[in-house]
């Protein structure tokens, strides 16, 4: 069936006639819009070579037998990202004021702010979810033997990440500044203090003095939202780099398979 002629484009959108000496003329606006996205990506890639890194990170070979247990690490990462995002927004309302402002700001978030209870709930329960996921991820790594050579360093980094997650849980627990938070922190700091020789100094450092005072809360707040998250992000980066570089392991129940084609060629 013959194609009907298209209605004429407005003059502004029409391709300009080729200039003298030009073979094809410049590309049109419609064509240019289609090309724009590719051009921007090309422009960045030409100057950074990022596409190689992206391919290296996302298009990896994974061993046979890779299953859902291998997603526990990603699940932990998503739990961390959820904590980071909700934490940033909670920080917009929170006041680390030991004289009553901290509790009042939490009460305000929970009762007055639109979706405040939901975002705070995500942060509060997400903390427990993250700890559970870290342990499941750790158990998977242990039971699958994925901590063995050459991945020992990644296990060590993972243990540090576990400890930092615990520190996050400990310091975040004080921030609502209710009775439970106060006494749990008193008990926690004093448990730290029972370490011989350095215990008393550790308690002094955590409390910011000899008694629980106004600086204790702001100290815990700074540790909770600046010091430990920075270390967490850096170490998660190192953890992911090593996972990408070394690759994942096959599950232990998979037997080693000879490559049949190479055997045939030897015959």
């Amino acid at each position, binding site marked *: 069936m013959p194609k009907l002629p298209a209605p004429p484009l407005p003059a502004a959108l029409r391709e300009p006639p080729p200039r003298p000496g030009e073979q094809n003329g410049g590309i049109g606006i419609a064509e240019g819009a289609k090309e724009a996205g590719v051009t921007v990506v090309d422009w960045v890639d030409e100057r950074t070579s990022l596409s190689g890194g992206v391919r290296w990170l996302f298009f990896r070979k994974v061993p046979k037998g890779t299953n859902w247990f291998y997603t526990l690490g990603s699940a932990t990462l998503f739990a961390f990202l959820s904590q980071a995002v909700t934490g940033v927004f909670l920080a917009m309302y929170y006041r680390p004021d*030991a*004289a*009553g402002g901290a509790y009042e700001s939490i009460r305000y978030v929970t009762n007055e702010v639109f979706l405040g209870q939901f975002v705070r709930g995500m942060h509060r329960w997400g903390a427990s979810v993250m700890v559970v996921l870290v342990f499941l991820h750790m158990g998977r790594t242990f039971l699958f033997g994925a901590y063995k050579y050459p991945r020992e360093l990644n296990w060590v980094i993972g243990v540090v990440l576990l400890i930092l997650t615990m520190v996050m849980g400990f310091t975040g627990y004080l921030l609502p*500044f209710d009775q439970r938070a*106060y*006494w749990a922190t*008193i*008990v926690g*700091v*004093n*448990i730290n*203090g*029972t370490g*011989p*020789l350095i*215990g*008393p*100094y550790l*308690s*002094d*450092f955590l*409390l*910011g*003095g*000899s*008694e*629980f*005072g*106004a*600086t204790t809360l702001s100290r815990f707040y700074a540790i909770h939202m600046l010091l430990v998250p920075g270390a967490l992000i850096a170490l998660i980066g190192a953890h992911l780099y090593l996972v990408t570089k070394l690759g994942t392991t096959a599950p232990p129940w998979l037997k080693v398979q000879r490559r049949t084609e190479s055997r045939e060629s030897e015959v």
Partner: protein
Amino acid sequence: MTGTANGAGAIAAAAFTLPALGFALGPIFKSTQHTWETVGTESLFVANNYTPVVVTLVPGIGEAGKSTVYIRRFNAAIDVDPYDQGTPYIAISSRCAHVGCPVRWVDAAERFICPCHGGVYDLLGRRVGGPPVRPLDRFYTRVVGEDVQVGPRFSVNSELRRFSPRYPGEPLDGIGQYLYPARPGAQKL
């Protein structure tokens, strides 16, 4: 050139790292100010039972800076330890020597009992059961005119020998006093 640049970088890094570290660790070495707080007149306290009073340990942070102290008059019949002689009033801290929960005086049992982990102390604040590692801390007391005043806190070992204030959970018997040193800023009264 390389050595100078590296050296300058090291000095620049140290120039902000060391003050920041000192800033964070400074409170360990800060000496505490001794304050005396009036808790009531002498007629408020008896020699054979404790009266709870609330004192402010850290001002400016509301309820979080307050603590309960149990006070009774010196009783020559039970306060026979040489360290207690000459003390007008016995002031026992309500902070449990296990991990710092608040103990309460239970009159019927004549014991201090901790709700958290079951620490039990006798009339003198000495441990009689549960996980605490030393007796309850005490406060210095003095009488000014008619008023009873509570001063700085101190810790005691199982013989009621006095030590500068320690955190809960730190034993002071035998090797304990060396494993858990006093704060650098702690001053003798």
